[in-house]
């Protein structure tokens, strides 16, 4: 068909069904974004950091989840706990540094305590308030330490030492139940021995968080990457399956990367993670915005923090084994950096593509259809690597939680399903 006029452009192209595209407004609308924060990000388990970032008792790490400031601390009993990083007195943020230790105490507080610098209220590592300055003078018997503990959050250390937190006290699933089997492909490798984070950087890019997640969920965009075009397109690559799990998670299964096809890259054979077959690659796209990528010798984890409909912060971590020798660590870092580092071969291409994708979808641009309709199956009928099942699977969960049909967000999810049927 030649270029289309406005009416033709507005029609669903070809014979695509209604679950095979989404409406671009889900990436740009402010009201939808606010709803995502309350209906999704406040209701799920998210990894917020790795336990190696708070290695010793009294270490802490601060972060945010769904705009709430969060503090993760390791107690004197070695237990990792999470709290809102909010003082119960007048709402000051208790700890402002990204990480550190309470071992020595703040200028106005005692060692091994969290102290709010504003009026010097103090808390222990379990979140109990243990000191209110001039308490009886000011509050008499109307308010005591026992009334003003910190707001604790449900927290689990799981899957290779990631610290998972939820803001929803009433969540009816553990992290394992929430994962719904999505970690089976790499759990043995992650849990064989302690891991350590060796790489951290962040990017704040002008795109909706779902566009980044979409990109991580589909491999059709390997055409974007020179590295992947050269190393990846072989029979075992096209045989990779794209598998959906409950709660909107997906896996893209293993294949052997042909590193010798690309100049300047060594095989990852020597330092493969425990139980991971040589040069293999496993990937989990975890609902609603986390990606775990285990490629031979290094684990990558991207955690997304949505900042607005067209703005997302992505934190990139690289992990190796805690037992690495300095030489082994350097090799892992090099393997990690060559593809995934900020100066590596792939990451900048991904960041570029989602930025220019979002640039066509400003809030005031007319809606358009974003196609998720590729079906490329293997002999068993299972979706393979260039099938867009990963995104379709994600948007079913998204639509259900938002009660909006992704192809027409003004329609309820149920109505959309009925129409699709």
């Amino acid at each position, binding site marked *: 068909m030649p270029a289309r006029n406005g009416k033709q452009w507005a029609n669903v192209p070809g014979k695509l069904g209604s679950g095979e595209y989404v409406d671009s407004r889900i990436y740009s609308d402010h009201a939808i974004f606010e709803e995502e924060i309350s209906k999704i990000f406040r209701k799920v388990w998210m990894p917020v950091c790795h336990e190696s970032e708070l290695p010793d008792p009294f270490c802490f790490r601060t972060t945010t989840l769904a705009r709430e400031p969060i503090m993760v601390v390791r107690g004197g009993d070695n237990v990792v706990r999470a709290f809102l990083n909010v003082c119960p007195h007048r709402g000051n943020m208790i700890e402002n540094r990204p990480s550190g230790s309470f071992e020595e105490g703040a200028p106005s507080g005692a060692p091994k305590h969290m102290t709010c610098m504003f009026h010097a209220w103090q808390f222990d590592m379990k979140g109990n308030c243990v000191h209110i300055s001039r308490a009886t003078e000011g509050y008499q018997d109307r308010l005591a330490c026992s009334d003003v503990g910190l707001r604790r959050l449900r927290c689990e250390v799981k899957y290779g030492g990631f610290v998972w937190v939820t803001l929803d006290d009433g969540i009816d699933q553990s992290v394992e139940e929430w994962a719904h089997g999505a970690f089976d492909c790499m759990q043995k490798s992650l849990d064989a021995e302690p891991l350590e984070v060796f790489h951290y*950087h962040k990017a704040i890019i002008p795109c909706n968080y779902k566009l980044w997640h979409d990109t991580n969920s589909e491999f059709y965009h390997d055409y974007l990457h020179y590295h992947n075009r050269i190393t990846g397109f072989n029979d075992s690559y096209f045989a990779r399956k794209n598998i959906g799990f409950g709660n909107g998670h997906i896996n893209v299964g293993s294949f052997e990367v042909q590193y010798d096809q690309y100049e300047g890259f060594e095989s990852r054979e020597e330092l493969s993670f425990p139980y991971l077959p040589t040069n293999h690659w496993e990937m989990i796209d975890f609902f609603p915005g986390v990606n775990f990528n285990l490629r031979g010798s290094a684990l990558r984890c991207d955690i997304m923090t949505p900042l607005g409909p067209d703005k997302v912060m992505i934190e990139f971590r690289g992990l190796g084994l805690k037992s690495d020798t300095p030489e082994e660590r350097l090799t892992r870092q090099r393997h990690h950096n060559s593809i995934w*580092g900020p100066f590596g*071969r792939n990451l*900048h*291409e991904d960041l570029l593509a989602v930025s220019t994708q979002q640039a066509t979808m400003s809030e005031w641009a007319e809606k358009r259809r974003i196609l998720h309709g590729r079906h490329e199956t293997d002999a068993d009928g299972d979706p393979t690597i260039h099938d867009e099942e990963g995104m379709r699977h994600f948007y079913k969960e998204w639509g259900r939680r938002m009660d909006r049909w992704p192809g027409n967000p003004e329609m309820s999810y149920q109505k959309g399903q009925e129409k699709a049927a």
Partner: protein
Amino acid sequence: MSDQLVIEDIKNTIYRASLYLDECRWADWLALCHEDFYYAIRAFSPEINYDMTYLDGHRADLVSMTEMLPKHNSDHSPLARHTVVYTVDVNDTQGTASCVSSFAVYQTQLDGINSHVLAGESNIFLVGKYRDIFRIGTGQPLFLQRVVQLDTRRLDKGTHWPI
């Protein structure tokens, strides 16, 4: 040659390298580097309390990296740096000199997002220090090592070029 002349020569080489990097003249830049040249981009992360290496390699790695740049899809927004050489310490007995320079890299938007609105806009992209070691005493001073020590750890798209 007096130390003062050697120091002037080294400063010139650092500034020439800055111009070559600004202009993406990778081969000219690498011609200022010794055959044993080692290059690294590092940063300390207070988030994970760790000295990180973001990129490192020897001369051959940089040759293959820079030759492959045109094969990649890129944000072509030019990066230009403002470099100031702070100190040059000559070690005559070893035939080397260590130098510390401060740099700020500016990005001028070209094609990275929406060129109609953004092209032509300049922003600070990276700041840090160059920690260089030179081989001296055999004519033109040559870079033996460059460690780019970044302060910046928010690294948005456009970072795939040598800094």
